C-alpha cells in the first residue's frame, strides 16, 4: 500500500470510528417548545416568558412513608444559555450531605458549631442514589445510557467522600443554544431532618430532593458542593411534578395543583405545575389543616394564600395570613409585584427542624404552641420567608457565592415591614424547658437592634470574613452573621444616609432589572449608585470588600471659662505677661476619635446649657478631630453621629459624653434590680438547707 495514502485512510478510519462512537445529536423533545413558548401580554403584544426557562423538569415521584423513601423519575430539558460549549452536565445531589459524617456539609457543621449531628442514630441518615441516567433522543433515536460515566466530583474542597455533586459526561458537546433531554431514575432515603428537609412522624418536608442541574455560566459550571453555610442556586424553568402519596394525606407544593388522581391502591397522585421558578419543594402530612385566604390590593395583583397548619396552631392561622399579606403589600409596593398568583405557607411540625425556609411560591414558617400576641413570633419568620419570594424566588442570586444578596436584602426589608405592621411588640424569653414564654413589656422590640440582629454581628467578630468572600468559604460559625446581620446593618445605614426613598428606588430598579435572573453584587451596587446619583463605592468597598469595623467616639468634652495666660503683645510694645479669665465666655472643646478602621462621614452635635446647639460635619477620615467653640454658656453634651446613621458602629455608648452624667442613677437602678434577683436566687437554693 502506498505509504502516502496512510494519513488519508487513518483520517477516514478516525471519522468512521467517531461516527460509531459518537451518537448523533437528537432533536429536542416537545416539552422544550412548550417551555419556550411565547404568550400574549395584556396589551396584545406577544412577549416571551418572564424567565429563560432553560432548566425544566417533568418528575414522577412516589413516597413510601413507612420506608421513608422516594422513588423517582425525571426528565430534564436543559438549554445551554451560556456562551460556552459543555461536554458534561453537573447535578446537585443534596441528600448525600446526610449520607455520613464525611460529607463536606457534615464536616463543616462539626467544625463550625461543634454540633452533635454526628451522633445521630442509623435511622436518621439520608441519601440519594441515581440508578439511571439517559440522554433522550427523538422517537427514532434510542436513549443513550450515561450512568457508566457519571461520577461524583468535589471541586470546592477536593473531599473525595463528598457525593453532593454528580458529573455526567456527554457523548457530544452541547453548544450555546442547544437543548438536551436527560432522564434520571433515582431512589432516596428521606433523612430525619439535619437541615431544612426531612421527616418526622408522618410529616414530610421534601426539598432539594431530586437530581438538580447546576448553572452553566460563561466561566463554566457553577455547581458547588453542599456546604454548611450556603443554600442553593439554579436556573429558572418549568416544573411539572406528579407526587404519589398515601390517599387522604394533604399535599402542598411549589406551584398549583392541576389534578388529583386516586390510584385505587391506597395512593393518590397530586399533579403540580409551575412556570418560571428555579426549584420545587413539597410537603405532605395527614395532619395539616388547610386554610386559604386572598391577598387583595388596589394596585397589586391578587394572590391566593394557602396556609397548611399544624392542628395545635390552628388559632394562629390569622397571624400567618396577616404576616404574608404584610409582605406582599410592602414588598410589592417597595420593589415590585409578587410575580405569581399563589403562595403556600407551611407550618412545620414540632421538632421537624424544617421551619424558616424558602422555596418558590412555597415556604415554611415556624411558631410555638404558646405564642404571645405581643411577641413577633411567628410574624417575623413568616414575613422573612415570604420576603424570600422576592429576594431569592423572583431575583435568583447565587446563594453559594453571595448569599447576602438575598438573605441580607430580605432581612433588611422584612424587619422594616415587621416594624411598620406589628409594632409595638416586645422581646421575650422562655422558661421551663423552653416551653413557657415570658414577655418583657419593658423592652420593646427594636428594629435597629433586634431586627438587624446586632448582637449576633457583635458576637460573631465582624473581622472573621470580608463579605466579598464567597459564602461557601465563610467560616461556618459566623457565616450567618456576615450574611444576614451585617447586610441588614449596612443597608439600614444606607437607608439613614441616603433616605428611604433613594434606597427604595434603587432596590426597586434592581428587582425590576434582575427578576428571573441571576444578579451579582456589582449589579446591586450599580442600581443603588444610579438611584443615589453618586458613586457609593467608598461605602460598598468597605462593608462588602473588607471586614473593617466602624467605631466613632467622643474622646473628651471640656467647657471652661476662657483663659489666656502668658505673654501678649500690647500696642506694639514689648510682650506683657497676663493671666486673664473671662467668665462671660466659655471655651468648649470636643474631641472626636475614629476608633475603628472603617471610615464614614459623621455629624458632631454639641449641646449648650442655654438650649442652643452646634452641629458639625466630619468626613471621619482622620484618627481624631477637635472642635472648639467660644460661647456664653457651658456645653452639656456632645454626640458623634447623633441620629445613629452609622448602624454598623455597634459601640454606641462611646458616641456621646455629658458634662453632668446620670451614670450613677443608672448604675444604682440596675444594682438594686440585680440584688433582688440574687436574693431570690439565694433563697431558691436555700430550699436545699
Amino acid at each position, binding site marked *: 500500500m502506498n505509504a502516502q495514502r496512510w494519513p488519508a485512510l487513518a483520517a477516514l478510519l478516525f471519522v468512521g470510528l467517531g461516527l460509531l462512537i459518537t451518537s448523533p445529536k437528537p432533536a429536542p423533545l416537545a416539552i422544550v417548545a412548550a417551555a419556550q413558548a411565547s404568550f400574549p401580554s395584556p396589551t396584545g403584544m406577544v412577549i416571551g416568558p418572564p424567565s429563560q426557562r432553560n432548566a425544566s423538569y417533568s418528575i414522577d415521584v412516589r413516597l413510601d412513608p413507612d420506608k421513608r423513601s422516594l422513588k423517582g423519575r425525571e426528565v430534564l430539558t436543559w438549554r445551554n444559555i451560556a456562551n460556552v460549549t459543555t461536554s458534561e452536565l453537573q447535578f446537585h445531589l443534596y441528600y448525600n450531605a446526610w449520607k455520613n459524617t464525611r460529607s463536606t456539609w457534615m464536616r463543616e457543621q462539626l467544625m463550625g458549631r461543634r454540633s452533635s449531628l454526628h451522633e445521630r442514630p442509623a435511622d436518621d441518615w439520608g441519601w440519594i442514589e441515581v440508578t439511571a441516567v439517559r440522554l433522550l433522543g427523538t422517537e427514532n433515536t434510542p436513549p443513550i445510557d450515561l450512568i457508566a460515566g457519571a461520577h461524583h466530583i468535589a471541586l470546592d474542597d477536593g473531599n473525595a467522600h463528598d457525593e453532593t455533586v454528580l458529573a455526567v459526561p456527554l457523548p457530544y458537546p452541547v453548544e450555546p443554544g442547544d437543548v438536551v433531554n436527560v432522564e434520571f431514575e433515582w431512589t432516596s432515603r428521606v433523612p430525619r431532618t439535619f437541615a431544612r428537609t426531612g421527616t418526622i*412522624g408522618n410529616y414530610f418536608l421534601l426539598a432539594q430532593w431530586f437530581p438538580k442541574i447546576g448553572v452553566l455560566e460563561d466561566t463554566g459550571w457553577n455547581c458547588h458542593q453542599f456546604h454548611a453555610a450556603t443554600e442553593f442556586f439554579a436556573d429558572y424553568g418549568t416544573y411539572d411534578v406528579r407526587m404519589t402519596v398515601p390517599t387522604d394525606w394533604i399535599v402542598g407544593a411549589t406551584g398549583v395543583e392541576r389534578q388529583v388522581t386516586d390510584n385505587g391502591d391506597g395512593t393518590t397522585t397530586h399533579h403540580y405545575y409551575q412556570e418560571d421558578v428555579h426549584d420545587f419543594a413539597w410537603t405532605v402530612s395527614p395532619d395539616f389543616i388547610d386554610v386559604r385566604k386572598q391577598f387583595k390590593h388596589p394596585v397589586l395583583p391578587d394572590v391566593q394564600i394557602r396556609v397548611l397548619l399544624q392542628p395545635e396552631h390552628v388559632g394562629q392561622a390569622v397571624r400567618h395570613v396577616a404576616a404574608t399579606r404584610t409582605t406582599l403589600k410592602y414588598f410589592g409596593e417597595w420593589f415590585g409585584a409578587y410575580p405569581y398568583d399563589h403562595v403556600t405557607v407551611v407550618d412545620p411540625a414540632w421538632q421537624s427542624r424544617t421551619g424558616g425556609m424558602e422555596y418558590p411560591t412555597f415556604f415554611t414558617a415556624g411558631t410555638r404552641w404558646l405564642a404571645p400576641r405581643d411577641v413577633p413570633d411567628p410574624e417575623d419568620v413568616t414575613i422573612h420567608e415570604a420576603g424570600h419570594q422576592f429576594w431569592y424566588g423572583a431575583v435568583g442570586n447565587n446563594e453559594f457565592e453571595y448569599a447576602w444578596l438575598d438573605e441580607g436584602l430580605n432581612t433588611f426589608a422584612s424587619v422594616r415591614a415587621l416594624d411598620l405592621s406589628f409594632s409595638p411588640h416586645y422581646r421575650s424569653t422562655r422558661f*421551663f424547658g423552653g416551653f413557657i414564654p415570658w414577655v418583657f413589656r419593658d423592652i420593646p422590640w*427594636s428594629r435597629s437592634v433586634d431586627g438587624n440582629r446586632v448582637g449576633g454581628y*457583635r458576637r460573631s467578630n465582624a473581622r472573621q470574613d470580608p463579605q466579598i468572600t464567597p459564602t461557601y468559604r465563610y467560616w461556618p460559625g459566623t457565616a450567618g452573621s456576615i450574611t444576614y446581620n451585617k447586610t441588614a446593618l449596612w443597608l439600614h445605614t444606607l437607608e439613614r444616609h441616603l433616605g428611604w426613598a433613594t434606597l427604595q428606588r434603587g432596590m426597586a430598579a434592581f428587582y425590576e432589572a434582575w427578576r428571573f435572573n441571576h444578579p451579582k453584587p456589582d449589579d446591586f451596587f450599580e442600581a443603588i449608585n444610579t438611584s443615589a446619583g453618586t458613586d457609593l463605592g467608598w461605602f460598598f468597598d468597605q462593608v462588602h470588600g473588607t471586614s473593617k469595623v466602624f467605631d466613632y467616639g467622643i474622646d473628651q468634652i471640656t467647657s471652661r471659662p476662657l483663659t489666656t495666660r502668658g505673654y501678649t503683645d500690647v500696642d506694639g510694645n514689648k510682650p506683657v505677661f497676663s493671666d486673664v479669665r473671662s467668665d462671660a465666655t466659655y471655651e468648649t472643646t470636643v474631641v472626636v476619635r475614629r476608633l475603628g478602621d472603617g471610615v464614614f462621614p459623621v455629624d458632631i452635635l454639641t449641646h449648650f446649657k442655654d438650649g442652643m446647639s452646634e452641629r458639625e460635619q466630619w468626613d471621619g477620615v482622620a484618627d481624631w478631630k477637635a472642635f472648639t467653640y467660644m460661647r456664653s454658656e457651658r456645653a452639656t453634651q456632645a454626640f458623634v453621629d447623633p441620629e445613629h446613621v452609622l448602624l454598623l458602629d455597634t459601640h454606641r455608648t462611646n458616641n456621646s459624653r455629658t458634662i453632668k452624667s*446620670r451614670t450613677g442613677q443608672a448604675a444604682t437602678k440596675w444594682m438594686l434590680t*440585680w440584688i*433582688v434577683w*440574687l436574693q431570690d436566687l439565694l433563697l431558691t437554693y436555700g430550699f436545699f*438547707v
Partner: protein
Amino acid sequence: MTRGFLDGIGRVIAAPTLILGLYAVTLLTAAPLGVLIRDAVATHLDSSAAADTVASGVGWEWWEEFQAQADGIATTLEPRIIGFAAVLTNLSGIADYRLPHWTVLLAIAGYIVVWLFLIGGVIDRLARQHRVTSSGFFAACGTYFLRFIRLAVLAFTTYWLLFQVIHGWVFDELYGHLTQNLTVERTAFFIRIGLYGLFGLMVIAVNLVFDYAKIRAVVEDRRSMLGALIAAFRFVRRRPTSTFGLYFINGGFFAGVLIGYAIVTPSPTGSDLAVWAAFLVGQAYILARLFTKLVFYASQTAYFQSQLAHALYVATPVRRWPESPVAEAISESRT
C-alpha cells in the same frame, strides 16, 4: 396538718427577729456583689449620654452592648433579672438544672454555709416557742453547726445524685425518649410537666426527710446525724399523708407568695421613685419568702412535737455560751 401549719405561722410571727436577722443575712450576701454590678455598669457607661436612657428606661440598645463586653459576674445582668422574670429564671434554672455563673455559685455556697450555722438556732427557737437571748440563739447555732455540716454532706450527696444523675436520666434520656418522634409541642409540654412533677416529688421527699432530720436533731438533741436521718425517714414513712400533706400546704402558701409577687411586681424601669419602689416591693417579697421558709420549719417542728408525748418537748435546756473554766470558777465562787 392544718393545725400544724397554723401553729407554724404563729410561731414565726412570734419570732420577728428571726425573720429580720435572716433577711439581713440575705441582703448582706447580695449587696456587696450588687456593688460589683453597679461598678461594671458605671464603668461601661462612663459619662455617656446613654446613661439618661438607661436611668429613665431600660436602654436596651445600651444593655445589648453592655452584655457583649461583660465578663465575670457582670454577665448575669440580663433582662431575665427584671421583675417577676427573676423568680421564673431562678425556678426554671433549678427545674432544668442550669447552674448560675460560678461567681454567683460561690455566693450561694457561702450563703448556704451561713444557713447551716443558723438553722440549729432557728429550729431551736421555733421549737421552744419563747424568746431566747441572742447568746442562747448563737449558742444553739454553734451546738448544731458541726452536726448540720455532717448532715449537709449527706444531703449534698443525695441532691447531687438527684440532679446530676437522675435529673439527666429523667429530662435527657426519658424525656428525650418519650418525645423523640413527637410532632405536637403541646403533648411534649404535658410530658415535661409530668416529669417535673415526678422529679419534684423525689426532691420533695428528700427535702422532707432532711427537714425532719434537722428537727429531730434539735428537738431530741441527736448527735448522730445518720441516726437522725434514719429516724426522720421512719417518721415520714409512718405518717406519709400528714407529713406530705403539711409540706404541700406549705408549698401552696409559697405558691401564693409567688403569685402575689407576680401580681404586684412593679417595673423598675421608670423614674428613680419607681426604681426604689420596685426595690422595696422586692424586699417585701424576700421577707415573705423568708417567712414562708420559716413556716415550713415551724409547722413541721410543731407537727413533730405534736406527735411526741409532750407537745412542746425540747430535749435540752436553753443553750448558753460555754464559759472558760476560770470564769466558771469565779461565777461559782460568787454563788
